[in-house]
């Protein structure tokens, strides 16, 4: 472009910073990159939701074309699960696990960086489909097969062009990254703990990330396998899912959901971890029933591997098959109930401080309770014959993903931001964020249950008037405005506090786990001297030498 020579000045410092982040193997930097990357995609998937809610605010709307709407819900779901929730939880896990077990880094720092970059490229690749263009692919931009991409809608006959390939390959890439992350969590937690930290003294966050890492290993692989089979169908003339040639559409469902359901636990278990750290500190009590919490978490991990076909009650399984998956799914309610009661018992008799992290944690508890109960309704196969694939399901899983997972992620932000940046987040803005988001959330997702009960299926770009759906959809759309505004407050708070928040010091919450024993932010080596612990709450022991935990464990 420039025909004349332009004097090139290279400023050393900015580039050096870029190189440092691009090439880093430090678990804290990788963790932060995961988090920032996920936040960017959070804004993207949020906008997709806003567009869809505008379209659905009233009946027979023509704001979006059906083609665009179908692409938006595919992108929204895929992005939300794979490029927001997973990376943000991997980010927190990466940042926190080594600090909390007194390690200097993850077990495999380079694999860790590799995992992040694979996930990052996966997300970018999905959105590259937007630029592939109609003219190139001849089949429109961006995939439109839904986030679970049921066969045979993904076959070349029904999805010509390359939009489905973008979906397939981007998740394949991200899946490889996730497996790398899973390996790393398991190896780190099993073998990098500081002296004195037996498995029984690990913070619950480490325990839960261990279960999450193990689940990633066994659940991502079926998805990856199915995606390779789909590639073979589309390009090598295989017939795994090609129903015209004797393939099986139901096979894809099994593959997808044996990934897809444990995936829900991959997302929620790290959130249990945040809550299990935050509730004790803000209630000023040790976690109630530590061994029961560990047992409940691991049993959820195992049972979650045997529940996948509750996504398939309408597929026409035999009655005993349906009954089996009703039973396994309902069994999950038992360890989940144990957790809720233990959190409750931790708060019982405490001195609860309602700082922003605790507000979000209590919000999580309430919403997770409701999401769990609607989950039992959906686990009841006959009830699911009515509720399945309706807006009731949409409301249920957003209750878990937004009301549960996102609330606990917000709690984690307010709680660990001081450790990551050395500065406190603004408490007033935090309260505004919480209350606006809470009200917006309930306007949207409480309302959406009802059109589901009144027969509104999901994934419709528009709907008929006169079925009792309009007003609930309108309220749901209004709620999105409040949620969006609350997220703006949150982002503003992040940036403002990052630049000029009140200095945090090492231990602003008077907490008990090892990450608070080092500076904020921690040095690259985390701890000047490797800590030695004698109980589950090493900092409690330091603060109360006369009455240490180690006496009671």
């Amino acid at each position, binding site marked *: 472009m420039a025909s004349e020579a332009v004097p090139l000045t290279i400023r050393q410092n900015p580039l050096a910073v870029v190189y440092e982040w691009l090439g880093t193997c430090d678990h804290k930097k990788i963790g932060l990159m995961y988090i920032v990357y996920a936040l960017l995609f959070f804004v993207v998937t949020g906008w997709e939701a806003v567009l869809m809610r505008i379209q659905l605010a009233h009946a027979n709307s023509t704001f979006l074309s*059906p083609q665009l709407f179908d692409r938006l819900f595919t992108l929204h779901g895929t992005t939300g699960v794979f490029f927001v929730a997973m990376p943000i939880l991997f980010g927190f896990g990466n940042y926190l696990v080594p600090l909390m077990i007194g390690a200097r880094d993850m077990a495999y720092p380079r694999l860790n960086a590799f995992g992040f970059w694979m996930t990052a490229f996966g997300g970018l690749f999905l959105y590259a489909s937007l630029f592939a263009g109609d003219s190139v692919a001849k089949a429109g931009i961006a995939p439109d097969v839904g986030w679970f991409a049921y066969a045979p809608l993904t076959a070349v006959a029904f999805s010509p062009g390359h939009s489905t390939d973008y979906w397939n390959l981007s998740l394949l890439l991200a899946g490889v990254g996730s497996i790398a992350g899973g390996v790393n969590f398991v190896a780190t937690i099993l073998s990098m703990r500081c002296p004195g930290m037996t498995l029984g003294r690990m913070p619950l966050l480490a325990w839960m990330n261990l279960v999450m890492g193990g689940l990633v290993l066994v659940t991502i692989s079926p998805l990856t396998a199915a995606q390779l089979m789909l590639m073979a169908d589309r390009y090598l003339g295989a017939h795994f899912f090609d129903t015209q040639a004797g393939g099986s559409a139901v096979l894809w469902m099994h593959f997808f959901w044996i990934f897809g359901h444990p995936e829900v636990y991959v997302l929620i278990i790290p959130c249990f971890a945040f809550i299990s750290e935050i509730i004790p500190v803000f209630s000023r009590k040790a976690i109630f*029933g530590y061994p029961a919490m560990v047992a409940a978490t691991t049993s959820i991990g195992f049972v979650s591997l045997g529940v996948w076909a509750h996504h398939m009650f309408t597929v026409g399984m035999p009655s005993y098959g349906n009954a089996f998956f009703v039973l396994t799914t309902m069994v999950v309610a038992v360890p989940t109930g144990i957790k809720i009661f233990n959190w409750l018992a931790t708060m019982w008799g405490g001195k609860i401080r309602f700082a922003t992290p605790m507000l979000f944690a209590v919000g999580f508890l309430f919403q997770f309770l409701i999401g769990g109960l609607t989950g039992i309704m959906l686990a009841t196969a006959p009830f699911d014959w009515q509720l399945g694939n309706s807006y009731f399901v949409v409301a249920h899983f957003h209750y878990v993903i937004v009301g549960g997972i996102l609330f606990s992620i917000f709690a984690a932000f307010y709680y660990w931001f001081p450790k990551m940046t050395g500065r406190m987040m603004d408490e007033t803005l935090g309260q505004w964020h919480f209350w606006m988001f809470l009200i917006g959330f309930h306007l949207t997702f*409480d309302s959406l249950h009802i059109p589901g009960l009144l027969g509104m299926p999901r994934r419709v770009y528009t709907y008929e008037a006169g079925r009792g759906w309009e007003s609930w959809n309108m309220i749901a759309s209004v709620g999105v405005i409040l949620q969006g505004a609350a997220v703006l407050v949150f982002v503003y708070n992040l940036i403002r506090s990052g630049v000029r928040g009140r200095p945090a010091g090492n231990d602003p919450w008077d907490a008990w786990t090892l990450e608070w024993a080092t500076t904020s932010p921690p040095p690259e080596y985390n701890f000047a001297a490797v800590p030695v612990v004698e109980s589950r709450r090493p900092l409690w022991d330091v603060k109360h030498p006369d009455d240490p935990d180690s006496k009671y464990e």
Partner: protein
Amino acid sequence: MLIFVVSMAESGLGAAGNPASPTNIFAPKSTPAHSIYQLSIFELEVLGTIFVVVFSLLAYAVIRFREQKHEDGSEPPQIYGSNQMELAWTVLPVLIVVVLFLSTAQVIHRVQDAREPQGTIEVTAVAHQFWWEYRYPQFGLVAANELHVPVSDPAHPTPTYIHLLSADVDHSFWVPQLAGKTDLIPNHPNNMWIDPHETGLFVGQCAQYCGTQHAKMLLRVYVENREDFDRWVHAQQQQAAANPSAAAGAALFVSKACFACHTIRGTMAAGPAGPDLTHLMSRETIASGAVPITRENLLKWVRNPDTFKPGSLMPAPDLTPQELGQIVDYLMTLD
């Protein structure tokens, strides 16, 4: 916190207070839907009780145990756990799960394993992108988009058994007041049954995303008394009557592309891909329930199906305005 209580109450009232909605799952009009309804009400009572108990405990903890203004800064007593309590809140949920599971299994069995009585109506529903084909093998007739079944007197049940097939991708048959949904999956035949207790029109729609026009793949089930149903069957069994006044349109139908996809029994048109049009005008809607059947709508639809259903698989035929009028005139004779 108040929000939670209000919102839950709202949800209940919202659904129950909507008897007007023709797709309300809590207004069952057929045995399978009724069995589900009874189970769901029992379950809602159980879960509602659990919610109220846990919610109250949580609300109490939040209010009662908040840090007081003038605290001395000391830590509260540290309690590490209690095996008795862990046992209590393990055993109690286990018992609840057992009860819920047994009542669920019973309803699964009752709906799924129901034995087919004598004298049922058998229908084969074939889902297509984005419309429904209904075959009645007992009567040798094929209809589209509007399913007709006889009402079933609970004293002398005449249920309808629906054999579910798909011609292309996954779909799902969901008329909430008659039964729960069952998917139509290519290469994986399914079955369901209904025994509507009242006459009337019952609506629903495809409940498994099946492509661009999933939203307008609407279901209409006309439940009629036996005489009306038999009359309908008899009428549908007839071939299309030749009508000299529409001869020009009839000729166009088989010379333009129409006949390649549509069947009109009694003519050369025998295409299998689109809806059977032999008795088109006996229906109340076109485009799988998208719009009422009027001359104006037929003109718009045949000129360009994207007017009502962008992305529908019917191509816009290349017709002059005069030809378009003639074809629609012909279609309007197909009663």
